[in-house]
């Protein structure tokens, strides 16, 4: 094993030690942060941002989920209407 590889292996060892330490330190701090958030949310429970409808302005949300409903409603109305007529005729 030549010197260069030994050097690289030492460097890798340092990286391993430093890297895993930082990863654990970082994610441990994040555990603390999550506990702090949970504490904060219990301490200051606000209904303010829980409102389901967002006040979206200027850009109407035309995604399928919203635009489908009126269509379905119309279709259902038509279907039930048709059906009632059909059943009445029968």
């Amino acid at each position, binding site marked *: 094993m030549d010197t260069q*590889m030994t050097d690289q292996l030492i460097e890798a060892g340092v*990286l391993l030690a*430093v890297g895993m330490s930082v*990863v654990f330190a970082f994610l441990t701090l994040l555990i603390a942060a*999550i506990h702090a*958030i949970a504490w904060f949310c219990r301490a200051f429970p*606000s209904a303010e*941002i829980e409102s389901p409808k967002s006040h*979206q302005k200027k850009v109407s949300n035309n995604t399928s989920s919203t635009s489908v409903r009126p269509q379905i409603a119309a279709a259902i109305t038509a279907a039930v209407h048709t059906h009632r007529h059909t059943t009445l005729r029968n």
Partner: protein
Amino acid sequence: MEQLLILWESTSLPHFDYKQIIMMFVGFGLLYLAIVRKFEPLLLLPIGFGAILTNIPLAGFSEAGGLLHYIYEVGVSTGVFPLLIFMGVGAMTDFSALIANPRMLLLGAAAQFGIFATLFGAILLNGLPWFEFTLQDASAIAIIGGADGPTAIFLASKLAPDLLGAIAVAAYSYMALVPIIQPPIMRALTTPEERKLPMAQLRVVTKKEKILFPLAVLVLTLILLPAATPLVGMFCFGNLLKECGVVDRLSNTAQNELINIVTIFLGLAVGSRLSADKFLTAETLGILALGAVAFSIGTASGVIMAKIMNRFSKDNINPLIGAAGVSAVPMAARVVNKVGLEANPHNFLLMHAMGPNVAGVLGSAVAAGILLALVGP
């Protein structure tokens, strides 16, 4: 006669290099894995197709003026595409399971051992005459152990662009192989009793916690590891778009149309790096071998960490869920659930495994940041 010669010259036949033909078969092989075996098809299908296109003689897909050249330069060498993918993945990720049980982050941390341990493997391979990995190369290869495609592509584009194609292919292939690689390791390291352990139900997480979580991750990252902020920051941005509830338009676009468009282009661009001179090398075999090692060590580290935590915890922790710490969301969590059900048909571990699973995404992004900071350019 001259016209016929021009015509002959304008076919691929007199220009084919056998290596290009091999690379095309590699491309078709990736298409096979994607379509028939359903190996991460969203990426491997475009990668495979890109690999075929880039190896066509005279077509010049990856030369100046070629389509794949433009896409690669615009999106991959700048790092923009993997970051946009990460934003979209953030907008798709639900951290509830992790917020409800934050200790799971330790499993996501432990599984990153696979990344750093693989550095040794890459350097030891240099002892063989065919390999000459620099520390930057080794780092880019090791990140395969993070089991996260965009992270691997982003790091490779910064540290080892020449190996990007092989690293991306290895990363996505092993992510797809999670159901085959992980279960034997999980079973070897756990007793049947451990695998049967039920876990306590998770508490409900409020909307406010879910909004504050990505901001907390962002703040910690920007203070401690700014080199990781491109990845982690875009991930948190996507997650905030999703959780804040006031920009559903943007969140939907980030997790649907935008990520789809970028996935098509990213796949093709990665495929364009599968040229013969870059892929048909001993390095590629080394990358594939090291990737498997990284993956396996990561899985084992996660399981062992879970065993240790179970010993010191008052609540049960089923050691299987440690395997989900490598990320590969949500495949690894599903595998945990499946192996758990084999031991105890009434024990559904899926939600419990989602915690370490998403923790693994953060863990490998952090590991990528460390590597960027310490061995980066």
